[in-house]
């Protein structure tokens, strides 16, 4: 249980802290810079033309979704391991999965817009696209299981098991382009020796995008984790009230 929070007065029970506020400002600045670099400064691609600018949202989105799901997996391990068992880990896992689904959604939407421009279609049954869709749905299923109800521990246990199995799909998505011959871009940045040479400024913009998305991820997870903690606390204080009420009921029946 997160006992440190209950020491504060209710007024302090907001999800923001000076750190996250500072982080928020940095992120706003970062987004501004990213937009400027991505849309105005970086060059158009030889093959892709202007549409390559979508990449600066598409690729960081996918990568951060991976990161989020991996964090969910790691927190789930931390929850399952007896020595570090704490609902905080479970809440981090849940928060991270939610943010991951969001980023995966961003990547899917930008990807299909991009596809419309370069392949002439929003969607095609390419392995990368399909496996991405499966990954997306898997985590929707994960969130559905979190919402099943039951005690907090039960929720944590079930979803942790599920998270460990789900995270294994990530390599499948990542290597799908090699497993199947596909339309989609091969791993050109993080992949093994490819002959694609990226323009320096493009690479930098992409790098900046990843950094900004990472900061956004951290900001979102911190807030979401805290709001989940508040939800759980609300449950607990609801339990206190309910206990009092039930005890009073027992008094009422006293002979």
């Amino acid at each position: 249980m997160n006992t440190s929070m209950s020491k504060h007065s209710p007024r302090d029970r907001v999800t923001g802290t000076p750190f996250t506020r500072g982080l928020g400002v940095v992120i706003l600045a970062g987004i501004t810079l990213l937009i400027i670099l991505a849309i105005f400064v970086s060059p158009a691609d030889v093959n892709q033309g202007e549409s390559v600018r979508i990449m600066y949202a598409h690729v960081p989105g996918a990568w951060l979704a991976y990161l989020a799901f991996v964090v969910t997996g790691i927190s789930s391990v931390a929850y399952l391991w007896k020595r570090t068992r704490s609902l905080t880990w479970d809440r981090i896992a849940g928060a991270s999965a939610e943010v991951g689904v969001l980023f995966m959604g961003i990547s899917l939407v930008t990807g299909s817009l991009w596809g419309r421009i370069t392949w002439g279609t929003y969607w095609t049954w390419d392995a990368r696209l399909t496996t991405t869709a499966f990954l997306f749905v898997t985590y929707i299923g994960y969130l559905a299981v979190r919402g099943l109800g039951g005690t907090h521990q039960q929720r944590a246990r079930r979803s942790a098991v599920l998270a460990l199995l789900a995270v294994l799909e990530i390599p499948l998505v990542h290597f799908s382009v090699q497993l199947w011959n596909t339309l989609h871009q091969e791993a050109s940045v993080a992949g093994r020796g490819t002959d694609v040479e990226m323009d320096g400024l493009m690479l930098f913009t992409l790098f900046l995008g990843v950094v900004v998305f990472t900061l956004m991820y951290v900001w979102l997870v911190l807030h979401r984790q805290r709001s989940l903690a508040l939800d759980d606390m609300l449950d607990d204080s609801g339990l206190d009230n309910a206990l009092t009420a039930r005890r009073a009921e027992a008094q009422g029946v006293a002979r």
Partner: protein
Amino acid sequence: MIAHEPGIDVVIDLSDAVAVLGSFPALAGATLSVNRGEIVLLRGPNGAGKTTLLRLCAGLIPLERGHGQVLGIDLKNDRELVRHRVGVIGHNNGLYGDLTVSENVRFWGRTVGATRAEVDAALRRMGLDGRLADLPVSRLSAGQKRRTALAGLVARRAELWLLDEPHAGLDATGRDELDQVLKMAAAAGATVMVASHELERAAQLATRQVEVVAGQVREIGAP
């Protein structure tokens, strides 16, 4: 003789135990101590928390707050360990409708390591030999199903019996048979806790009565 670890004579020991269903404290601070060999009757109005108390003692639901030990095992950390030493029957029977009476009883007996002889004895004990033994459970009457479930329970030698309205549906003979089984088990060193609304009948069986009201436990003198 039922085996037991020597020295543990307080079989159930709850203090200020809270158990939560959904977000409702069905048990709101229950304190109860039961010794070996007792037959305790749980009484109290509908929704008071009797079923919840039994399930907590069986290690089926978590102990949210307070302390609890059953058969010397801490409910907070090791409640899974309680289970195979406890015999439970709830509101449901837990039977497979496609299997026959004897197959069901044998299945439940064997999951807890009972021998064939023990299973047959249990069937006889509950009057389920003869025509009924080979009838699929789905064709039984309500009381016959309850009997079958009880036979499955009798087939194992539990140290602690937790029974939730076991008499419901049984006919007069069945009730007598069950009471006799429970008394014999208690005499042999097992402990029994029964929730029931049939107060006159259960009072004859019990060595001690306890009232559950709004999630709390109150002692009532010996009957």
